[in-house]
């Protein structure tokens, strides 16, 4: 296509390079803000760090109780109160544990002692199982323990924050 004479850039090559360069620059200038807009969700900060009141501490037993609470959720232009659930109890050391019911396999919802799964959390989607501490039982689909909510106690009232992953089996 191009005639090379003594390694010099031919007139046609020069024009090709210039046009491609200028055209590419102009195209990029047009497209860049649009791509920026499309990837905006990646740039947004994570959810809120607020703590919400869930239950009184003296109601907490060694048996997991399912409690729901509401967090303020900003979904783009749509502000809403989103429901969250937690399994709350004291473990054998007497420490408070508030577990997220979201299965760490693929995000279904686990239940406590459902069917014949005594003393276990069970996920019906793919038969994921967790022991009472929310640690996944090896050989079942989940690859990590149930997430635990951050909590805070003020005046005998339990407040929950965000749920974080834990180390486990």
């Amino acid at each position: 296509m191009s005639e090379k004479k003594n390694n010099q850039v031919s007139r046609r090559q020069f024009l090709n390079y210039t046009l491609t360069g200028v055209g590419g620059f102009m195209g990029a200038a047009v497209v860049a803000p649009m791509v920026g807009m499309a990837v905006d969700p990646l740039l947004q900060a994570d959810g809120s760090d607020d703590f919400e009141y869930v239950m009184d501490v003296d109601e907490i037993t060694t048996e997991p109780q399912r409690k729901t609470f509401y967090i303020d959720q900003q979904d783009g232009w749509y502000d809403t109160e989103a429901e969250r659930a937690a399994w709350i109890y004291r473990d054998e050391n007497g420490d408070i544990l508030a577990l997220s019911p979201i299965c760490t396999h693929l995000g279904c919802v686990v239940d406590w002692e459902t069917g014949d799964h005594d003393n276990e959390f069970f996920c019906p989607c793919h038969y994921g199982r967790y022991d009472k501490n929310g640690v996944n039982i090896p050989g079942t689909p989940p690859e990590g323990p149930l997430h635990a909510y951050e909590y805070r106690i003020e005046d005998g009232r339990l407040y929950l924050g965000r749920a974080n992953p834990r180390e486990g089996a």
Partner: protein
Amino acid sequence: MLQKLYDWVDERLDITPIWRDIADHEVPEHVNPAHHFSAFVYCFGGLTFFVTVIQVLSGMFLTMYYVPDIENAWHSVQYLQSQVAHGQIVRGMHHWGASVVIVMIFLHTLRVFFQGAYKKPRELNWIVGVLLFFVMFGLGFTGYLLPWDNKAFFATQVGLEIAESVPVIGTDIKTLLAGDPDIVGAQTLTRFFAIHVFFLPAALFGLMALHFIMIRRQGISGPL
């Protein structure tokens, strides 16, 4: 590298004649601004196309955030305008481009008109061009409602009343456009959105294809 890739594809599909047909064509001296500066008047058609491409691209990205619903439309525009990265720029491109494209298409029409370039054998291309003009106006009219603010609402109210002033079928036209004989509301917004985003662009692309095929087939009209 690129050359090798091109050769690989070309060897199998023989694509060179295809893009030669599209890209390789004579630019007569009288339309080349390097020869006669006044030939810049021939740019307006291309500029119309360029702005149209920007409109299509920016519009595609705007629909990632926009919802055509009376409860949420304004809030989604507010959100994409003030919270989304570069949202203000992209909406600005679409907003200003909508006006610029009308200006460009008008200048292009003036050039063709005053040069008499619409005369035989190019009458059909003139007709397609006028249809393109109407489609562009339709895009402007329907797009204006979408932010669902007061200006948009009352502009549409007025536009619909104008449509209603057509003899005999005016009321039916208005109902057909607004989706309701009396209300400018939820159904109007979804209709205008569908027309703006699907129906008119489809018509636009078809007509543009015809426009370009015809100009390539007939060539640019001769010098004055």
